[in-house]
Protein backbone atom coordinates (compact mmCIF):
# COMPACT_ATOMS: atom_id res chain seq x y z
CA UNK A 1 0.00 0.00 0.00
CA UNK A 2 2.89 2.30 0.78
CA UNK A 3 4.12 2.00 -2.82
CA UNK A 4 0.72 2.76 -4.30
CA UNK A 5 0.08 5.69 -2.04
CA UNK A 6 3.44 7.40 -2.51
CA UNK A 7 2.32 9.97 -5.09
CA UNK A 8 -1.10 10.85 -3.66
CA UNK A 9 -2.13 13.90 -1.71
CA UNK A 10 -2.60 13.51 2.01
CA UNK A 11 -6.41 13.60 1.89
CA UNK A 12 -6.54 11.04 -0.92
CA UNK A 13 -4.19 8.77 0.95
CA UNK A 14 -6.22 9.10 4.12
CA UNK A 15 -9.48 8.33 2.32
CA UNK A 16 -8.04 5.23 0.72
CA UNK A 17 -6.55 4.06 4.02
CA UNK A 18 -9.91 4.61 5.70
CA UNK A 19 -11.83 2.63 3.08
CA UNK A 20 -9.32 -0.22 3.05
CA UNK A 21 -9.36 -0.25 6.84
CA UNK A 22 -13.16 -0.48 6.90
CA UNK A 23 -13.10 -3.35 4.41
CA UNK A 24 -10.27 -5.07 6.28
CA UNK A 25 -12.30 -4.99 9.49
CA UNK A 26 -15.84 -5.58 8.25
CA UNK A 27 -15.22 -8.22 5.59
CA UNK A 28 -13.45 -10.76 7.84
CA UNK A 29 -15.95 -10.03 10.63
CA UNK A 30 -18.89 -10.71 8.30
CA UNK A 31 -17.20 -13.84 6.99
CA UNK A 32 -16.73 -15.12 10.52
CA UNK A 33 -20.31 -14.42 11.52
CA UNK A 34 -21.78 -16.12 8.46
CA UNK A 35 -19.33 -19.00 8.14
CA UNK A 36 -18.95 -19.90 11.80
CA UNK A 37 -21.68 -18.34 13.91
CA UNK A 38 -24.51 -19.00 11.44
CA UNK A 39 -23.38 -22.12 9.61
CA UNK A 40 -20.76 -24.06 11.55
CA UNK A 41 -22.62 -23.67 14.82
CA UNK A 42 -25.80 -24.93 13.15
CA UNK A 43 -24.06 -27.91 11.61
CA UNK A 44 -22.52 -28.80 14.96
CA UNK A 45 -26.05 -28.87 16.35
CA UNK A 46 -27.39 -30.90 13.42
CA UNK A 47 -29.44 -28.13 11.85
CA UNK A 48 -29.00 -26.01 8.76
CA UNK A 49 -29.04 -22.44 10.06
CA UNK A 50 -30.39 -19.55 7.99
CA UNK A 51 -31.40 -20.77 4.52
CA UNK A 52 -33.93 -18.23 3.26
CA UNK A 53 -32.06 -14.97 2.65
CA UNK A 54 -29.99 -15.51 -0.50
CA UNK A 55 -28.39 -18.79 -1.52
CA UNK A 56 -27.78 -20.83 1.64
CA UNK A 57 -28.73 -17.83 3.73
CA UNK A 58 -25.65 -15.88 2.67
CA UNK A 59 -27.47 -12.53 2.78
CA UNK A 60 -28.81 -13.18 6.28
CA UNK A 61 -26.20 -10.86 7.74
CA UNK A 62 -27.46 -7.92 5.67
CA UNK A 63 -30.98 -8.67 6.84
CA UNK A 64 -29.78 -8.69 10.45
CA UNK A 65 -28.01 -5.36 10.01
CA UNK A 66 -31.15 -3.91 8.42
CA UNK A 67 -33.19 -5.16 11.34
CA UNK A 68 -30.87 -3.59 13.91
CA UNK A 69 -30.90 -0.26 12.06
CA UNK A 70 -34.70 -0.11 12.27
CA UNK A 71 -34.79 -0.59 16.03
CA UNK A 72 -35.39 2.23 18.45
CA UNK A 73 -32.30 3.64 20.12
CA UNK A 74 -33.36 3.30 23.74
CA UNK A 75 -31.59 5.32 26.40
CA UNK A 76 -32.21 4.38 30.04
CA UNK A 77 -33.59 7.29 32.05
CA UNK A 78 -30.89 7.20 34.71
CA UNK A 79 -28.09 6.54 32.23
CA UNK A 80 -25.02 8.73 31.96
CA UNK A 81 -26.01 9.87 28.48
CA UNK A 82 -22.71 10.93 26.97
CA UNK A 83 -20.70 7.99 28.28
CA UNK A 84 -23.50 5.57 27.41
CA UNK A 85 -23.46 6.80 23.82
CA UNK A 86 -19.68 6.90 23.60
CA UNK A 87 -18.93 3.40 24.91
CA UNK A 88 -19.60 1.39 21.70
CA UNK A 89 -17.30 3.70 19.75
CA UNK A 90 -14.46 3.16 22.23
CA UNK A 91 -14.83 -0.60 21.87
CA UNK A 92 -14.97 -0.36 18.09
CA UNK A 93 -11.99 2.01 17.91
CA UNK A 94 -9.73 -0.46 19.71
CA UNK A 95 -10.70 -3.02 17.07
CA UNK A 96 -9.97 -0.64 14.22
CA UNK A 97 -6.63 0.37 15.72
CA UNK A 98 -5.61 -3.26 16.09
CA UNK A 99 -5.91 -3.96 12.36
CA UNK A 100 -3.24 -1.32 11.70
CA UNK A 101 -0.34 -3.46 12.85
CA UNK A 102 -1.13 -6.55 10.77
CA UNK A 103 0.70 -6.68 7.44
CA UNK A 104 -0.95 -8.40 4.48
CA UNK A 105 2.02 -8.50 2.11
CA UNK A 106 5.62 -7.33 1.79
CA UNK A 107 4.42 -3.83 0.86
CA UNK A 108 0.89 -4.01 2.20
CA UNK A 109 0.60 -2.49 5.63
CA UNK A 110 -1.12 0.43 7.28
CA UNK A 111 1.70 1.46 9.58
CA UNK A 112 5.18 -0.01 9.84
CA UNK A 113 6.53 0.84 13.28
CA UNK A 114 9.39 -0.84 15.07
CA UNK A 115 7.24 -1.61 18.12
CA UNK A 116 4.30 -2.89 16.07
CA UNK A 117 3.26 -5.85 18.16
CA UNK A 118 3.59 -3.84 21.35
CA UNK A 119 1.33 -1.17 19.87
CA UNK A 120 -1.20 -3.81 18.80
CA UNK A 121 -1.41 -5.44 22.21
CA UNK A 122 -1.62 -2.02 23.85
CA UNK A 123 -4.52 -0.73 21.76
CA UNK A 124 -6.35 -4.04 22.05
CA UNK A 125 -6.79 -3.38 25.78
CA UNK A 126 -8.55 -0.06 25.16
CA UNK A 127 -11.75 -2.07 24.70
CA UNK A 128 -11.73 -2.74 28.47
CA UNK A 129 -12.34 0.95 29.05
CA UNK A 130 -15.24 0.92 26.60
CA UNK A 131 -16.81 -2.08 28.32
CA UNK A 132 -16.40 -0.50 31.75
CA UNK A 133 -17.94 2.73 30.42
CA UNK A 134 -20.88 0.79 29.01
CA UNK A 135 -21.47 -1.07 32.25
CA UNK A 136 -21.16 1.97 34.49
CA UNK A 137 -23.21 4.35 32.34
CA UNK A 138 -26.11 1.95 31.89
CA UNK A 139 -27.15 2.38 35.54
CA UNK A 140 -28.22 -1.24 35.64
CA UNK A 141 -26.95 -3.83 38.06
CA UNK A 142 -26.67 -6.47 35.38
CA UNK A 143 -24.59 -4.17 33.22
CA UNK A 144 -22.36 -3.16 36.10
CA UNK A 145 -21.73 -6.72 37.24
CA UNK A 146 -21.08 -7.79 33.66
CA UNK A 147 -18.67 -4.93 33.09
CA UNK A 148 -16.78 -5.66 36.31
CA UNK A 149 -16.51 -9.33 35.41
CA UNK A 150 -15.33 -8.39 31.93
CA UNK A 151 -12.71 -6.04 33.34
CA UNK A 152 -11.36 -8.65 35.73
CA UNK A 153 -11.29 -11.21 32.98
CA UNK A 154 -9.67 -9.04 30.34
CA UNK A 155 -6.96 -7.84 32.73
CA UNK A 156 -6.27 -11.40 33.87
CA UNK A 157 -5.96 -12.74 30.34
CA UNK A 158 -4.05 -9.79 28.91
CA UNK A 159 -1.02 -11.06 30.82
CA UNK A 160 -0.76 -14.61 29.43
CA UNK A 161 -1.49 -13.25 25.96
CA UNK A 162 1.36 -10.73 26.10
CA UNK A 163 3.68 -13.24 27.74
CA UNK A 164 2.89 -15.81 25.04
CA UNK A 165 3.82 -13.26 22.40
CA UNK A 166 7.09 -12.52 24.21
CA UNK A 167 8.29 -16.00 23.24
CA UNK A 168 7.76 -15.15 19.58
CA UNK A 169 9.46 -11.81 20.02
CA UNK A 170 12.51 -13.43 21.59
CA UNK A 171 12.74 -15.94 18.78
CA UNK A 172 12.29 -13.38 16.03
CA UNK A 173 14.46 -10.80 17.77
CA UNK A 174 12.19 -7.92 16.82
CA UNK A 175 8.95 -6.19 17.79
CA UNK A 176 8.18 -5.23 14.20
CA UNK A 177 5.34 -7.42 12.91
CA UNK A 178 6.54 -7.28 9.33
CA UNK A 179 9.99 -8.47 10.42
CA UNK A 180 8.45 -11.24 12.52
CA UNK A 181 6.75 -12.51 9.34
CA UNK A 182 10.04 -12.20 7.45
CA UNK A 183 11.86 -14.07 10.21
CA UNK A 184 9.37 -16.90 9.91
CA UNK A 185 9.60 -16.90 6.11
CA UNK A 186 13.38 -17.04 6.02
CA UNK A 187 13.82 -19.17 9.14
CA UNK A 188 15.08 -22.70 9.19
CA UNK A 189 14.20 -25.71 11.30
CA UNK A 190 17.48 -27.53 12.06
CA UNK A 191 18.92 -26.43 8.78
CA UNK A 192 15.82 -27.29 6.74
CA UNK A 193 14.35 -24.11 5.26
CA UNK A 194 11.76 -25.59 2.91
CA UNK A 195 8.72 -24.31 4.76
CA UNK A 196 10.38 -21.47 6.59
CA UNK A 197 9.94 -21.61 10.33
CA UNK A 198 6.34 -20.92 11.35
CA UNK A 199 6.56 -20.36 15.10
CA UNK A 200 3.63 -22.64 15.77
CA UNK A 201 6.18 -25.46 15.69
CA UNK A 202 8.77 -24.01 18.05
CA UNK A 203 6.35 -21.94 20.11
CA UNK A 204 3.52 -24.46 20.29
CA UNK A 205 2.94 -23.85 24.01
CA UNK A 206 2.86 -20.13 23.35
CA UNK A 207 0.35 -20.69 20.52
CA UNK A 208 -1.95 -22.66 22.82
CA UNK A 209 -1.72 -20.05 25.58
CA UNK A 210 -2.38 -17.32 23.02
CA UNK A 211 -5.48 -19.13 21.70
CA UNK A 212 -6.90 -19.64 25.21
CA UNK A 213 -6.18 -16.04 26.14
CA UNK A 214 -7.80 -14.80 22.92
CA UNK A 215 -10.85 -16.88 23.71
CA UNK A 216 -11.08 -15.14 27.08
CA UNK A 217 -10.36 -11.71 25.61
CA UNK A 218 -13.29 -12.14 23.24
CA UNK A 219 -15.54 -13.07 26.19
CA UNK A 220 -16.68 -16.12 24.24
CA UNK A 221 -17.75 -19.43 25.75
CA UNK A 222 -16.28 -21.13 27.75
CA UNK A 223 -15.14 -17.76 29.14
CA UNK A 224 -18.38 -15.80 28.62
CA UNK A 225 -19.11 -14.87 32.23
CA UNK A 226 -19.36 -11.13 31.41
CA UNK A 227 -22.33 -11.78 29.12
CA UNK A 228 -23.63 -14.93 30.83
CA UNK A 229 -27.26 -14.98 29.66
CA UNK A 230 -28.55 -17.17 32.44
CA UNK A 231 -27.06 -14.95 35.15
CA UNK A 232 -26.69 -11.41 33.83
CA UNK A 233 -29.12 -11.11 30.88
CA UNK A 234 -26.30 -10.03 28.54
CA UNK A 235 -23.98 -8.26 30.96
CA UNK A 236 -22.75 -4.87 29.84
CA UNK A 237 -24.87 -5.09 26.66
CA UNK A 238 -28.14 -5.34 28.56
CA UNK A 239 -29.33 -1.76 28.08
CA UNK A 240 -28.12 -1.35 24.51
CA UNK A 241 -30.40 -1.61 21.52
CA UNK A 242 -30.41 -0.97 17.80
CA UNK A 243 -27.35 0.56 16.22
CA UNK A 244 -25.30 0.72 19.42
CA UNK A 245 -25.86 -2.97 20.12
CA UNK A 246 -24.88 -3.67 16.52
CA UNK A 247 -21.62 -1.81 17.09
CA UNK A 248 -20.79 -3.98 20.08
CA UNK A 249 -21.68 -7.02 18.00
CA UNK A 250 -19.46 -5.93 15.11
CA UNK A 251 -16.74 -5.11 17.62
CA UNK A 252 -16.91 -8.59 19.10
CA UNK A 253 -16.62 -10.44 15.82
CA UNK A 254 -14.19 -8.00 14.21
CA UNK A 255 -11.98 -8.48 17.25
CA UNK A 256 -12.31 -12.23 16.84
CA UNK A 257 -11.25 -11.89 13.21
CA UNK A 258 -8.34 -9.59 13.96
CA UNK A 259 -7.04 -11.63 16.88
CA UNK A 260 -7.19 -14.68 14.61
CA UNK A 261 -5.25 -12.74 11.98
CA UNK A 262 -2.76 -11.71 14.65
CA UNK A 263 -2.35 -15.32 15.77
CA UNK A 264 -1.92 -16.34 12.13
CA UNK A 265 0.68 -13.63 11.65
CA UNK A 266 2.66 -14.40 14.79
CA UNK A 267 2.51 -18.18 14.71
CA UNK A 268 1.55 -19.39 11.24
CA UNK A 269 3.74 -17.18 9.07
CA UNK A 270 1.25 -14.44 8.17
CA UNK A 271 0.91 -13.70 4.47
CA UNK A 272 3.79 -16.00 3.54
CA UNK A 273 3.35 -19.35 1.84
CA UNK A 274 6.33 -21.69 1.42
CA UNK A 275 7.88 -22.07 -2.00
CA UNK A 276 8.22 -18.42 -2.99
CA UNK A 277 10.71 -15.72 -2.14
CA UNK A 278 9.29 -13.62 0.69
CA UNK A 279 10.11 -10.43 -1.22
CA UNK A 280 8.26 -11.63 -4.33
CA UNK A 281 5.91 -8.98 -5.67
CA UNK A 282 3.26 -11.69 -6.09
CA UNK A 283 2.70 -11.60 -2.35
CA UNK A 284 1.22 -8.11 -2.63
CA UNK A 285 -1.62 -9.76 -4.56
CA UNK A 286 -2.06 -13.14 -2.89
CA UNK A 287 -0.87 -12.03 0.55
CA UNK A 288 -4.28 -10.83 1.78
CA UNK A 289 -5.93 -14.03 0.55
CA UNK A 290 -3.32 -16.21 2.24
CA UNK A 291 -3.71 -14.22 5.43
CA UNK A 292 -7.51 -14.58 5.22
CA UNK A 293 -7.15 -18.33 4.78
CA UNK A 294 -4.85 -18.68 7.77
CA UNK A 295 -7.10 -16.39 9.79
CA UNK A 296 -10.10 -18.60 8.99
CA UNK A 297 -8.11 -21.65 10.10
CA UNK A 298 -7.33 -20.09 13.49
CA UNK A 299 -10.88 -18.74 13.79
CA UNK A 300 -12.22 -22.23 13.10
CA UNK A 301 -10.47 -23.48 16.22
CA UNK A 302 -11.57 -20.49 18.30
CA UNK A 303 -15.20 -20.96 17.29
CA UNK A 304 -15.00 -24.74 17.59
CA UNK A 305 -14.04 -24.31 21.25
CA UNK A 306 -16.81 -21.74 21.57
CA UNK A 307 -19.50 -24.10 20.37
CA UNK A 308 -18.26 -27.09 22.36
CA UNK A 309 -17.51 -26.06 25.91
CA UNK A 310 -19.87 -24.97 28.67
CA UNK A 311 -19.21 -21.89 30.74
CA UNK A 312 -16.52 -21.79 33.44
CA UNK A 313 -17.16 -20.50 36.93
CA UNK A 314 -15.73 -17.10 37.79
CA UNK A 315 -13.14 -18.47 40.26
CA UNK A 316 -12.12 -21.26 37.87
CA UNK A 317 -11.53 -18.62 35.23
CA UNK A 318 -9.21 -16.57 37.45
CA UNK A 319 -7.45 -19.72 38.66
CA UNK A 320 -6.77 -20.82 35.09
CA UNK A 321 -5.26 -17.45 34.26
CA UNK A 322 -3.13 -16.82 37.36
CA UNK A 323 -2.19 -20.33 38.43
CA UNK A 324 -1.79 -22.12 35.12
CA UNK A 325 -1.41 -19.87 32.10
CA UNK A 326 0.85 -17.14 33.52
CA UNK A 327 3.38 -19.55 35.15
CA UNK A 328 3.32 -21.67 32.01
CA UNK A 329 4.01 -18.70 29.77
CA UNK A 330 6.81 -17.51 32.08
CA UNK A 331 8.42 -20.94 31.86
CA UNK A 332 7.96 -20.77 28.10
CA UNK A 333 9.78 -17.44 28.00
CA UNK A 334 12.66 -18.77 30.09
CA UNK A 335 13.07 -21.90 27.93
CA UNK A 336 12.86 -19.86 24.73
CA UNK A 337 15.44 -17.45 26.06
CA UNK A 338 17.83 -20.23 27.08
CA UNK A 339 17.45 -22.02 23.74
CA UNK A 340 17.92 -18.73 21.88
CA UNK A 341 21.26 -18.23 23.65
CA UNK A 342 22.37 -21.84 23.22
CA UNK A 343 21.65 -22.12 19.48
Amino acid at each position, binding site marked *: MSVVLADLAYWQETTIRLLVGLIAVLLPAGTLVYLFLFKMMSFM*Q*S*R*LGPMEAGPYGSLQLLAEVGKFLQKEDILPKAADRLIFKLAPFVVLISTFLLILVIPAGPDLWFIDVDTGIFLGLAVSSISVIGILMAGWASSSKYSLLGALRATGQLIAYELPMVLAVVGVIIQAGTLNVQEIVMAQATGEIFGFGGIGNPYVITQFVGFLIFLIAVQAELTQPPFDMPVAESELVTGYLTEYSGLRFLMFFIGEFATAAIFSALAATLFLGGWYVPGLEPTDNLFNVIGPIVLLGKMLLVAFFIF*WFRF*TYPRFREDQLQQLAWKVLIPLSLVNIVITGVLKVVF
Partner: protein
Amino acid sequence: MRKIKLPGLIKGLGVTFKTLVRTLTKGSHTVQYPRVKESPPPRARGVIALHEENCTACMLCARECPDWCIYIEGHKYKAPPRRPGGKPRKKNALDRFDIDFSLCMFCGICVDVCPFEALFWTPEYEYSELKIADLLHDKTLLSQWMETVPDFEDYEAGSEAKKLTVPR
Protein backbone atom coordinates in the same frame (compact mmCIF):
# COMPACT_ATOMS: atom_id res chain seq x y z
CA MET B 1 -8.38 -54.50 24.65
CA ARG B 2 -8.92 -51.67 27.03
CA LYS B 3 -10.56 -48.70 25.44
CA ILE B 4 -8.26 -45.70 25.37
CA LYS B 5 -9.70 -42.95 27.54
CA LEU B 6 -9.48 -39.47 26.11
CA PRO B 7 -9.76 -36.40 28.32
CA GLY B 8 -13.30 -35.05 28.33
CA LEU B 9 -12.24 -31.79 26.73
CA ILE B 10 -10.93 -33.52 23.61
CA LYS B 11 -13.86 -35.94 23.57
CA GLY B 12 -16.26 -32.98 23.54
CA LEU B 13 -14.48 -31.46 20.56
CA GLY B 14 -14.83 -34.82 18.83
CA VAL B 15 -18.57 -34.86 19.40
CA THR B 16 -19.16 -31.45 17.87
CA PHE B 17 -16.83 -32.19 14.96
CA LYS B 18 -18.54 -35.50 14.26
CA THR B 19 -21.91 -33.78 14.22
CA LEU B 20 -20.51 -31.16 11.85
CA VAL B 21 -19.31 -33.82 9.42
CA ARG B 22 -22.53 -35.80 9.69
CA THR B 23 -24.68 -32.74 9.02
CA LEU B 24 -22.57 -31.84 5.99
CA THR B 25 -22.62 -35.35 4.52
CA LYS B 26 -25.94 -36.84 5.59
CA GLY B 27 -28.08 -33.78 6.21
CA SER B 28 -29.52 -32.33 9.37
CA HIS B 29 -32.14 -33.63 11.74
CA THR B 30 -34.31 -30.59 11.14
CA VAL B 31 -36.37 -29.98 7.98
CA GLN B 32 -36.99 -26.72 6.14
CA TYR B 33 -40.63 -26.71 7.22
CA PRO B 34 -42.85 -24.83 4.78
CA ARG B 35 -41.02 -26.36 1.81
CA VAL B 36 -40.45 -29.81 3.29
CA LYS B 37 -43.21 -31.32 5.39
CA GLU B 38 -42.29 -33.18 8.49
CA SER B 39 -43.84 -36.65 8.71
CA PRO B 40 -44.94 -37.26 12.28
CA PRO B 41 -45.11 -40.80 13.67
CA PRO B 42 -48.49 -42.48 12.92
CA ARG B 43 -49.70 -42.27 16.51
CA ALA B 44 -48.70 -38.63 17.00
CA ARG B 45 -51.29 -36.47 18.78
CA GLY B 46 -52.08 -33.92 16.11
CA VAL B 47 -55.80 -33.33 16.19
CA ILE B 48 -58.84 -35.25 17.46
CA ALA B 49 -61.29 -36.77 14.97
CA LEU B 50 -64.93 -37.65 15.69
CA HIS B 51 -66.84 -40.59 14.24
CA GLU B 52 -70.31 -39.11 14.57
CA GLU B 53 -72.36 -42.31 14.17
CA ASN B 54 -70.71 -43.88 17.19
CA CYS B 55 -71.29 -40.96 19.53
CA THR B 56 -74.20 -41.32 21.93
CA ALA B 57 -73.79 -37.91 23.58
CA CYS B 58 -72.98 -39.70 26.83
CA MET B 59 -70.90 -36.67 27.94
CA LEU B 60 -68.09 -38.81 29.40
CA CYS B 61 -65.45 -37.06 27.35
CA ALA B 62 -66.79 -33.60 28.21
CA ARG B 63 -66.81 -34.45 31.90
CA GLU B 64 -63.34 -35.96 31.95
CA CYS B 65 -61.75 -33.17 29.95
CA PRO B 66 -59.38 -31.27 32.28
CA ASP B 67 -59.69 -28.09 30.25
CA TRP B 68 -63.44 -28.30 29.68
CA CYS B 69 -62.88 -27.70 26.02
CA ILE B 70 -65.51 -30.14 24.70
CA TYR B 71 -69.04 -28.84 24.22
CA ILE B 72 -71.82 -31.37 23.65
CA GLU B 73 -75.51 -30.81 23.18
CA GLY B 74 -77.97 -33.54 22.37
CA HIS B 75 -81.61 -34.50 22.61
CA LYS B 76 -83.55 -37.72 23.02
CA TYR B 77 -86.00 -38.90 20.46
CA LYS B 78 -88.30 -41.88 20.09
CA ALA B 79 -87.21 -44.30 17.44
CA PRO B 80 -89.79 -46.70 15.98
CA PRO B 81 -89.88 -50.07 17.75
CA ARG B 82 -87.83 -52.96 16.42
CA ARG B 83 -90.79 -55.33 16.25
CA PRO B 84 -94.34 -54.32 15.47
CA GLY B 85 -96.31 -53.69 18.63
CA GLY B 86 -93.20 -53.00 20.69
CA LYS B 87 -92.36 -49.98 22.73
CA PRO B 88 -90.69 -47.06 20.88
CA ARG B 89 -87.00 -46.92 21.66
CA LYS B 90 -85.34 -43.93 23.30
CA LYS B 91 -82.30 -42.74 21.37
CA ASN B 92 -79.77 -39.95 21.81
CA ALA B 93 -79.14 -37.57 18.93
CA LEU B 94 -76.08 -35.37 18.74
CA ASP B 95 -76.86 -31.70 18.07
CA ARG B 96 -73.52 -30.18 18.79
CA PHE B 97 -70.03 -31.57 19.36
CA ASP B 98 -67.32 -28.90 19.47
CA ILE B 99 -63.71 -29.15 20.59
CA ASP B 100 -61.98 -25.88 21.30
CA PHE B 101 -58.37 -26.51 20.25
CA SER B 102 -57.30 -23.19 21.69
CA LEU B 103 -57.99 -24.69 25.12
CA CYS B 104 -57.16 -28.32 24.42
CA MET B 105 -53.90 -29.54 25.92
CA PHE B 106 -53.77 -32.74 23.88
CA CYS B 107 -53.83 -35.05 26.91
CA GLY B 108 -55.97 -37.59 25.07
CA ILE B 109 -58.17 -38.43 28.07
CA CYS B 110 -61.32 -37.98 25.93
CA VAL B 111 -60.00 -40.47 23.40
CA ASP B 112 -59.17 -42.97 26.14
CA VAL B 113 -62.39 -42.56 28.03
CA CYS B 114 -64.82 -42.84 25.09
CA PRO B 115 -66.61 -46.20 25.47
CA PHE B 116 -68.12 -46.19 21.98
CA GLU B 117 -64.98 -45.59 19.91
CA ALA B 118 -66.11 -42.28 18.58
CA LEU B 119 -62.91 -40.26 19.17
CA PHE B 120 -59.54 -40.88 17.49
CA TRP B 121 -56.16 -39.25 17.26
CA THR B 122 -54.84 -38.22 13.87
CA PRO B 123 -51.29 -37.02 13.18
CA GLU B 124 -52.44 -34.00 11.14
CA TYR B 125 -50.96 -30.79 12.52
CA GLU B 126 -51.56 -28.05 9.95
CA TYR B 127 -54.74 -26.44 11.21
CA SER B 128 -53.51 -23.15 12.63
CA GLU B 129 -55.84 -20.18 12.24
CA LEU B 130 -55.50 -16.41 12.19
CA LYS B 131 -58.41 -15.94 14.59
CA ILE B 132 -58.53 -17.85 17.85
CA ALA B 133 -62.28 -18.43 17.49
CA ASP B 134 -61.64 -20.48 14.35
CA LEU B 135 -59.88 -23.09 16.45
CA LEU B 136 -63.27 -24.22 17.73
CA HIS B 137 -63.84 -27.25 15.51
CA ASP B 138 -67.49 -28.25 15.12
CA LYS B 139 -68.70 -31.76 14.47
CA THR B 140 -68.61 -31.42 10.69
CA LEU B 141 -64.97 -30.49 10.76
CA LEU B 142 -64.17 -33.08 13.43
CA SER B 143 -65.82 -35.73 11.25
CA GLN B 144 -63.73 -34.65 8.28
CA TRP B 145 -60.59 -35.40 10.29
CA MET B 146 -61.69 -39.07 10.34
CA GLU B 147 -60.25 -39.48 6.83
CA THR B 148 -56.77 -38.85 8.18
CA VAL B 149 -56.91 -41.35 11.04
CA PRO B 150 -54.31 -44.07 10.41
CA ASP B 151 -55.07 -47.72 11.08
CA PHE B 152 -53.98 -49.05 14.45
CA GLU B 153 -50.64 -50.72 14.45
CA ASP B 154 -50.25 -54.37 15.36
CA TYR B 155 -49.65 -55.11 19.01
CA GLU B 156 -46.41 -56.77 19.92
CA ALA B 157 -46.14 -60.54 19.41
CA GLY B 158 -47.93 -62.63 22.05
CA SER B 159 -50.45 -59.97 22.97
CA GLU B 160 -53.94 -61.33 23.51
CA ALA B 161 -55.71 -57.99 23.41
CA LYS B 162 -58.15 -57.57 20.56
CA LYS B 163 -56.86 -55.24 17.89
CA LEU B 164 -59.11 -52.23 17.44
CA THR B 165 -60.25 -51.17 14.01
CA VAL B 166 -60.94 -47.66 12.89
CA PRO B 167 -64.56 -47.25 11.72
CA ARG B 168 -64.54 -45.88 8.20
